[in-house]
């Protein structure tokens, strides 16, 4: 951090600290402790996250997103402050139990994971005479409850992993929460091995289709790819995607609004499912255009031949044959 940035950091964190201390005067967190935590976060997620130099405005914007009171509580809990622990337990235990019950397969698993997380939060390891609390990894970039949900989810995956030595990481994630219902979401299409490619022309069309589709998708911007993957692979509903972009500061929302002319009208308007649908439609339109452009420009196909490609690919959908060698082609 240069001097200007450091001064701004000191000023903003002083104000934030005073506000937090006023809200929780008994937590015993010092300004040095508070600043050290924020400085680590700023370095890791702001300064080091981009090659661009960090402006004072970037810093202020970043610190504004910090859930300062939750961070204050986490720091106090990490230090073993009695009052903070009581407040944490009082405010979050029943929530954690409900999240665990929602995710775990059995009541016993739910109880076990909550106990385990509590142990981790308190810190069961002592390194160089210091207890290592899981709270120390909370930076305040999301809410305390959001972070707890993630920790519980992760702990359940770890528990599942510990009891299933041969299970891959992907399989494990699919056995926790709703993912269990979509355990085959990424399974390669079955069947189709006995389908023969009839003639060299059809083979050429098939290869061109796969290559073009792969390149078209790869040409999309990251936020468009992410949206399509959420919808088609992870089975997120429009309502769930709109939840993800509900916050005005949502980065995914920001990316789509940057490209949208309607943004200027009301950038703070609530994102409805219909908006997400429009984003999807735009992404489809983009990938379809890129797909057609490549079939025409690179493979030299006519409109009629492109239709043939689409027809063949549609026929193949039942057997999944067209994608059999996708990894080699893509």
């Amino acid at each position, binding site marked *: 951090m240069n001097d200007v940035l450091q001064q701004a950091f000191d000023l903003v964190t002083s104000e934030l600290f005073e506000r937090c201390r006023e809200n929780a*005067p008994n937590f015993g967190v010092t300004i040095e402790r508070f600043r050290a935590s924020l400085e680590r976060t700023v370095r890791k*997620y702001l300064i080091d996250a981009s090659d661009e130099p960090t402006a004072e405005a970037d810093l202020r914007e970043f610190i504004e997103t910090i*859930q300062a009171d939750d961070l204050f509580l986490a720091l106090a809990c990490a230090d073993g402050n009695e009052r903070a622990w*009581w407040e944490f337990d009082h405010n979050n235990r029943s929530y954690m139990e409900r999240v665990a019950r929602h995710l775990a397969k059995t009541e016993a698993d739910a109880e076990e994971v909550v106990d385990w997380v509590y142990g981790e939060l308190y810190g069961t390891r002592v390194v160089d005479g210091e207890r290592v609390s899981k709270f120390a*990894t909370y930076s305040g*970039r999301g809410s305390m409850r959001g972070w707890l949900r993630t920790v519980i989810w992760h702990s359940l995956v770890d528990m599942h992993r510990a009891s299933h030595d041969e299970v891959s990481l992907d399989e494990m994630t699919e056995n926790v929460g709703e993912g269990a219902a979509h355990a085959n979401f990424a399974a390669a299409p079955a069947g189709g091995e006995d389908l023969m490619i009839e003639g060299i022309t059809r083979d050429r069309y098939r290869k061109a289709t796969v290559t073009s589709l792969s390149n078209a998708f790869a040409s999309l911007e990251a936020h468009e790819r992410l949206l399509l*993957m959420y919808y088609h692979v992870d089975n997120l509903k429009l309502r769930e995607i709109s939840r993800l972009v509900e916050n005005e500061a949502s980065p995914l929302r920001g990316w789509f609004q940057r490209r949208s002319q309607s943004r200027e009208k009301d950038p703070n308007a609530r994102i409805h499912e219909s908006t997400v649908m429009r984003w999807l439609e735009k992404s*489809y339109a983009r990938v379809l255009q890129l797909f057609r452009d490549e079939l025409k420009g690179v493979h030299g196909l006519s409109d009629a031949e492109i239709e043939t490609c689409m027809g063949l690919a549609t026929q193949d959908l039942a057997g999944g044959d067209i994608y059999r060698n996708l990894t080699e082609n893509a």
Partner: protein
Amino acid sequence: MGNTENINLSDARFQGLLERFLRVRSAGDKASDADRHLDEDSFAAFVEGNMTMREATPVIKHLADCGFCRHKTAELVKLDLAFAETEIPASIPQTAPARAADVIEGILSRLFGSGDAAVMAHEEKPSDEPPAADEEKEKK
């Protein structure tokens, strides 16, 4: 097609193609490089939409390419929505709440089968009451 909710486009055939392609493509994703996955803190911040654009750019790129992290965020969004509809209140103690140290000690006992004084780095003085915030505030 799997997810066809509310989508009514002229070229549904292309969507079918794309979906098939994406599913097969994601089946080839490997989650072996666990060190490069997002940390819990970033998951929580992303799911809540609480990131600056600068910070989010590499995260979105990572999620677009990493099936493990993306799937995890998808699950967390579902969870977030499920719990948003039913606000979970703070627990209301019927009696004076136990001291935090007692709560933790009880949990550690269940986890490790003993009182585990060794890991209780903070020796707390016995008390029947939780710390009274208001009283302490008044003293100041």
